[in-house]
């Protein structure tokens, strides 16, 4: 098996007296979609925020491409090539697709003048490399796009910078059937390009379809990390709701101790 791109081991995080993450181990492999599932309050968001540098960590180690790294600031994560696509998208409606994809990182010439042509070309190339076919022009205003197209733009923005890992926080939560299809295809293509994708979702159908591996969080612990093809939806749901399923998952004592 290939080396993991991102290796999190024995990560602990508390907010005051609340111990949110217990000895969490979580790996992201290149070219694979790793689903991160868990009920509300299981610690998914906290884990993501620790990697993003929004939350500090209490103990544990984060290794990126084998090297131990400290991520103290969102810019550290960006510098490593880790991008985050948040649920509420963070696109500016009054700007067009290109402008949004380059927002905050515009290409310039003569000091601070915009190089619109070059940005337009790169935006188009990036979208084309992801086989996005539903966008007629990269100069379209984001306000005129559908939910799926917006999600596409947000994801494309993350890969524009040759990022190695992309975290997607519930990218299909607000989408219709056809649009979900569109985004899931995009997620798959992203991984096929060699990117490590972390897919956070509550929708088991989406997870089973697109993910290579599933990590289930249960009350701040990793209940199990399983390959999608070795498991079933029922098993994952059990892992999410009770921390164990058959002979995999947390030991019964551990699983019940938090309740």
């Amino acid at each position, binding site marked *: 098996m290939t080396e993991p791109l991102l290796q999190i081991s024995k990560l602990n995080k508390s907010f005051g007296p609340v111990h949110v993450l217990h000895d969490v181990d979580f790996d992201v492999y290149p070219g694979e979609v790793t689903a991160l599932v868990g009920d509300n309050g299981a610690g998914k968001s906290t884990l993501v925020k620790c990697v993003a540098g929004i939350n500090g960590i209490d103990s544990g180690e984060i290794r990126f491409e084998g090297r131990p790294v400290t991520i103290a600031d969102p810019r550290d994560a960006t510098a490593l090539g880790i991008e985050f696509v948040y649920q509420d998208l*963070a696109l*500016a409606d009054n700007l067009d697709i290109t402008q949004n994809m380059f927002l*905050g990182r515009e290409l310039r010439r003569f000091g601070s003048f*915009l190089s619109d042509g070059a940005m337009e*070309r790169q935006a188009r190339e990036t979208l084309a490399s992801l086989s996005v076919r539903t966008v007629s*022009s990269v100069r*379209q205003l984001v306000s005129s796009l559908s939910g799926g197209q917006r999600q596409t733009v947000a994801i494309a923005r993350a890969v524009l910078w040759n990022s190695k890992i992309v975290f997607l926080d519930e990218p299909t939560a607000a989408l219709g059937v056809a649009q979900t299809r569109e985004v899931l295809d995009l997620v798959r293509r992203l991984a096929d390009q060699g990117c490590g994708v972390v897919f956070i979702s509550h929708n088991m159908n989406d997870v089973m379809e697109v993910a290579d591996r599933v990590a289930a969080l249960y009350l701040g612990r990793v209940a199990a990390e399983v390959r999608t093809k070795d498991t079933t939806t029922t098993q994952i749901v059990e892992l999410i709701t009770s921390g164990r399923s058959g002979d995999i998952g947390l030991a019964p004592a551990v699983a019940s101790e938090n309740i």
Partner: protein
Amino acid sequence: MPTETPETRVEAGSLPEPERASGFSLDAEEVSIRGAIRAWFGKLRTGDPGALPSVLGLVVLVLLFSQVSDQFLSAYNIGNIPGQGAYIAVIAMGLVFVLLLGEIDLSAGTAGGACAAFAAVGVFKGSLHDGLPASLYWSIVVGLVLAIGLAIWVKTYAGAVVVAVGLVLVLTNQTQHLVPALIAAVCIGAAIGIFNGYLVAKVGIPSFVVTLALFLAWQGVLQFALSGQPVNTSNYDLWHELTYGRLSVTNSWIFVSVIVLGYVGYTVLRSVRAKAAGLAHETMSLVLTRGAALAAIAVVITAWASQNRNTNPFKVISGIPVPAAIAIVLMIGCTIALTKTTWGRHLYATGGNPEAARRAGIDVVHMKVTAFALCSAFGALGGIMLASSQSSASLDLGSGNVLLFSVAAAVIGGTSLFGGRGRPRDAILGALVIAIIPNGLLLRPSLDAQWQQVITGVVLLIAAAVDAISRRRAARG
């Protein structure tokens, strides 16, 4: 190539999937004259009326007032309109920056009035130090130093430099000369804006409240500065000319040629470059047709303005009015800053979605402080223009309806009060509408002046309704 017909262009997003233009088919194509017209109608339909409402309003008002008085369309009267509206245009242009962020600056008018009064006192009394009450003089000095500190703290270095220039001019008493005094007034305006921006962005007071409070406060400062004695500004030639001056006929032609040729040259270059890079570009026929239309309009206006328009045979009045030239130059400068620089892009983004801007690494506090600083600096320039058109730095300079008319001008022109949408051009068009109303009404003395407020109010209401409706259409997609 995909087989879409060009008709799918404006419908992208609203057509069923298979019919929609896809695969960037629109990104490499040429924009022809027909295509440009169709795209324009498409924008209208999807809720972006652009300049259309204000231009239509202007046409309606012109038709109306040409019936009210046959003097209205006389060259003399038309030639006066730029001088009557320029201060509104300048203040409104500054407001556009703040309105783009979804904020408002109610104090731009009175702050500008106070700044203009400082300049007037400086040149009239020969020294700001002796002319102003001592406490006010030292307050200005301390305020400027604090503003420099604040500007550096929020990384607005350009603002800090501008304010430092003002500080040097004040301390070295260069304000006894007219030009340095006017520059110092604009710099003090920038310092005022830095405080506004700091209070809004860092302290977190709503801009409406901050600037409402300062709207009141600056009126008092103005009276302190003038010590109850208005200063006549028409004694200073340059100051007087800001409103009443005209470019000579030769200079008028040079001015217009530079602008038209600059615009045509820029659009031709853009089209050629985009074509070479394989991007969507306007065809040469579209670029040249538009350039020719602009040139034709410019030639007609300039030729008209070059004639003597004074009915009084003793003095020749001809050439483009200086206030019109000032407004146009400022508009071009602001448009370049907003559309061609990263700063402008970030300003639109911050206005459209502050959270997205923050996550994209844009310093939102910095954007707000610069926008407010620019707004107040433009307010100071507007105050100077206003003093020029009134021929006096009066005790109520910049108070009353000045600011409200300026906000109205920006909104009538098409700038949204909700942020994220607006252009410097809007300020000019809106100011024309606002200035034409009293101009037309005063030509028939039998119509009472009350009508001015009523008509202005109705026009503003219509403009705000157009904004709200077009927004709803845009949201519906």
